């Protein structure tokens, strides 16, 4: 059969590789900054942009979408061409994809620093960027499928299945979770409210981990591990089972982020069962990776690439063992809202994603520049510093999480809570410091890599277009043995796309549709009323400053939480919350019942200088709230938006809302005046105080037996 000559596009791979190196450092530095601000809050320099609530989303978005995102594209653009024995479908699309993605990252970082956020974790970017992400993702999809369709290799290797499943599922997750109503250029409200918003968000959030941080990287593992070890994957049959079981089960696991919350009980149980089952395909994949190295372990000692890959796969195994364990309700009762979760995700991020990316970079760059790595020794140094960094990062946080949870739940013999919330925070500060040291080591390792790769690039000769040849795909494929239906899918990318979509969509639909359609799942509480216009402004400020990143609004039905915060949270309390603000971490105490707990002046002084009210507090000062004026011109559009989302303000209320706002503002200023605090008119701080004082108040007004009875049945599912 005659062979055809063609060129692989290395230029796009190079661009993505440079982006990976650049964004890895940026993302990690943002993380380090945020971690330092937990024990040294004044590192925020008194600026809004650098306070924890804004740095943290910058860090998570930079690491997930900039570092790992570019890592995915680098690996996919390199491996896909070679697995399909063809150049990428379109140079123009490759270019648009690269520059489009970088533009989204830059604008995303700037807007997050400016406080433009939708307030949903890992999906914080506002609506114009959501649209841009969808456009760039479609460009990537056309390029991906175009390449697969014009391939010269008749089989579609398992790595490509992972890429296809990634593409289609991320598209679905992004679109469903980003349904929002724009209020202005950089502000929108989530279409969903309360429990429904929470369910959609964590269905998205968990599957962002699954289909952005895991499946594409498994695809990369299935390509780069055989390449680096120079031997085929241990069991290709296992990889098929791994693939289908993993994508099918992953999509159901989201509700494990909402255990003991006001989410209906049946949905929680569904999430737990599938999370436990996840351990099987995850470990199947890990073992498939590690067994590939059987008989080649001596090379692991020599080759830095294999070292990084082995630790990455081991961390994948650790994280995917821990994940199901954390999904058990009795473990989750201890771990949730603590630093345990942070440790868990960093085993994944630093170990699995980080080390796999580093391994691929150390393998890829010498090849594309036709030169050996500048220094194997430096790569070895990076490996050890990075590994120690991961340990020093994770172990203190496991310790901190467990310790703090035990302190929260500790009662004296008289039945009183033993510790103030703040005591549990100051107790674990040494662990936070150690964590930052671990993070610093990890960054030093990454900087050593940047230096090493820069030297490699300098000494090499880059081939932007790499010559290759392969026979054209025959029109009629030869078959091996008996032909089964799976071959019909496995050789055709579009069937693969449809089947993957069906597999992941079923899970999403069964979980979500009942919560949206069935009334008994969200029992209404008649005393829960929509927010006043001033409170709505305050809520926007609460979202803008990222308060939800440290404060939950979800009292779980535990003795200690009810004693500390008050009555446990009910699904019906959140029906006007667009977006929901349950949070996922308690660096500070829960705020679901904070309304009326302190006088207005307490909040005023606390936000001006938290240590004045709570000595030892690690909350930053929010000085700018005392200067910024409230933008009351926005009030009518905010009310109209809420009305469109189904919040029952009276007809025509938008035009009168500012009158109510002024009246409520005047009353809060009067109450502050009573405590000898005078504040200027229309300041943001007053709106935020109004919102905080509203939290949890409605339910206190409700007749006791009504909320207890109505809720009890549906919440506990019996």
């Amino acid at each position, binding site marked *: 059969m005659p062979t055809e000559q063609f060129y692989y596009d290395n230029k796009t791979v190079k661009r993505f590789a440079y982006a990976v190196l650049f964004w890895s450092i940026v993302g990690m530095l943002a993380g380090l900054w945020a971690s330092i601000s937990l024990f040294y809050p004044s590192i925020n320099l008194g600026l809004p942009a650098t306070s924890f609530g804004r740095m943290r989303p910058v860090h998570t978005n930079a690491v997930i979408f900039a570092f790992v995102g570019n890592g995915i594209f680098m690996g996919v653009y390199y491996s896909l061409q070679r697995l399909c024995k063809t150049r990428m479908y379109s140079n123009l699309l490759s270019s648009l994809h690269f520059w489009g993605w970088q533009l989204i990252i830059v604008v995303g970082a700037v807007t997050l620093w400016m406080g433009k956020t939708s307030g949903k974790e890992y999906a914080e970017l506002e609506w114009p960027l959501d649209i841009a992400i969808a456009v760039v993702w479609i460009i990537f999809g056309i390029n991906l499928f175009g390449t697969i369709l014009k391939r010269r*290799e008749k089989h579609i290797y398992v790595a490509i299945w992972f890429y296809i499943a990634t593409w289609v599922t991320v598209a679905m997750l992004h679109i469903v979770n980003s349904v929002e109503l724009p209020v202005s250029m950089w502000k929108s409200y989530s279409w969903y409210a309360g429990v429904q918003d929470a369910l959609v968000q964590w269905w998205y959030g968990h599957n962002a981990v699954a289909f952005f941080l895991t499946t594409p990287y498994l695809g990369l593992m299935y390509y780069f591990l055989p390449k680096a070890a120079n031997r*085929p994957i241990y069991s290709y*049959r296992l990889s098929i089972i791994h693939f289908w079981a993993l994508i*099918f089960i992953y999509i159901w696991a989201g509700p494990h982020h909402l255990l003991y919350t006001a989410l209906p009980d*049946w949905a929680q149980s569904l999430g737990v069962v599938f999370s436990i089952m996840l351990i099987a395909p995850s470990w199947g994949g890990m073992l498939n990776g590690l067994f590939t190295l059987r008989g080649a372990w001596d090379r692991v000692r020599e080759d830095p690439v294999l070292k990084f890959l082995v630790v990455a796969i081991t961390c994948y195994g650790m994280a995917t063992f821990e994940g199901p364990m954390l999904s058990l309700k009795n473990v989750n009762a201890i771990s949730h809202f603590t630093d345990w979760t942070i440790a868990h995700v960093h085993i994944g991020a630093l170990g699995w994603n980080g080390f796999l990316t580093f391994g691929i970079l150390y393998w890829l760059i010498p090849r594309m520049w036709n030169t050996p790595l500048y220094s194997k020794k430096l790569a070895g140094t990076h490996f050890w510093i990075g590994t120690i960094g991961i340990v020093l990062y994770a172990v203190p946080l496991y310790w901190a999480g467990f310790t703090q949870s035990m302190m929260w739940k500790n009662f004296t013999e008289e039945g009183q809570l033993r510790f103030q919330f703040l005591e549990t925070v100051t107790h674990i500060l040494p662990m936070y410091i150690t964590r930052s040291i671990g993070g610093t080591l990890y960054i030093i390792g990454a900087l050593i890599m940047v230096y090493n790769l820069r030297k490699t690039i300098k000494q090499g000769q880059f081939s932007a277009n790499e010559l290759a040849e392969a026979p054209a795909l025959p029109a009629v494929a030869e078959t091996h043995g008996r032909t089964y239906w799976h071959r019909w899918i496995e050789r055709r990318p579009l069937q693969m796309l449809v089947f993957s979509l069906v597999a992941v969509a079923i899970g999403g639909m069964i979980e979500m549709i009942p919560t949206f359609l069935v009334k008994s799942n969200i029992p209404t509480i008649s005393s829960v009323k929509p927010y006043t216009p001033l409170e709505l402004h305050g809520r926007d400020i609460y979202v803008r400053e990222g308060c939800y990143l440290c404060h939950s609004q979800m009292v779980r039905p535990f003795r200690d939480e009810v004693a500390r915060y008050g009555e446990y949270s009910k699904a019906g309390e959140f029906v006007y919350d667009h977006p929901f603000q349950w949070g996922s971490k308690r660096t500070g105490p829960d705020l679901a019942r904070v309304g009326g707990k302190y006088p207005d002046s307490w909040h005023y002084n606390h936000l001006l200088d938290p240590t004045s009210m709570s000595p030892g507090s690690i909350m930053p000062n929010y000085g700018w709230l005392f200067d910024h004026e409230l933008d009351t011109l926005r009030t009518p559009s905010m009310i109209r938006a809420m009305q469109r989302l189904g919040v029952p303000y009276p007809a025509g209320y938008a035009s009168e809302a500012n009158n109510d706002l002024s009246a409520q503002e005047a009353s809060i200023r009067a109450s502050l005046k009573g405590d000898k605090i005078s504040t200027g008119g229309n300041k943001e701080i007053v709106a935020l105080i109004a919102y905080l004082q509203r939290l949890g108040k409605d339910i206190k007004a409700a007749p006791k037996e009504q909320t207890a009875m109505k809720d009890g049945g549906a919440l506990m599912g019996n």
Partner: protein
Amino acid sequence: MKFIHYIERVGGVSVYGIFSLALFGLIFGVMLVWALRADRNMIKEISQIPLDDQTN
């Protein structure tokens, strides 16, 4: 669009869990049978693809 509750109560919620487990079991079973019965030579050929791309 508002989310209107079309159904007043959810009947037999346990069926969701059973249905999803059964669905998974079915798909997993079929995949398992296929993967184990697939032709040995084809599996071997496919697993060689990454090593057969002429780059290093």
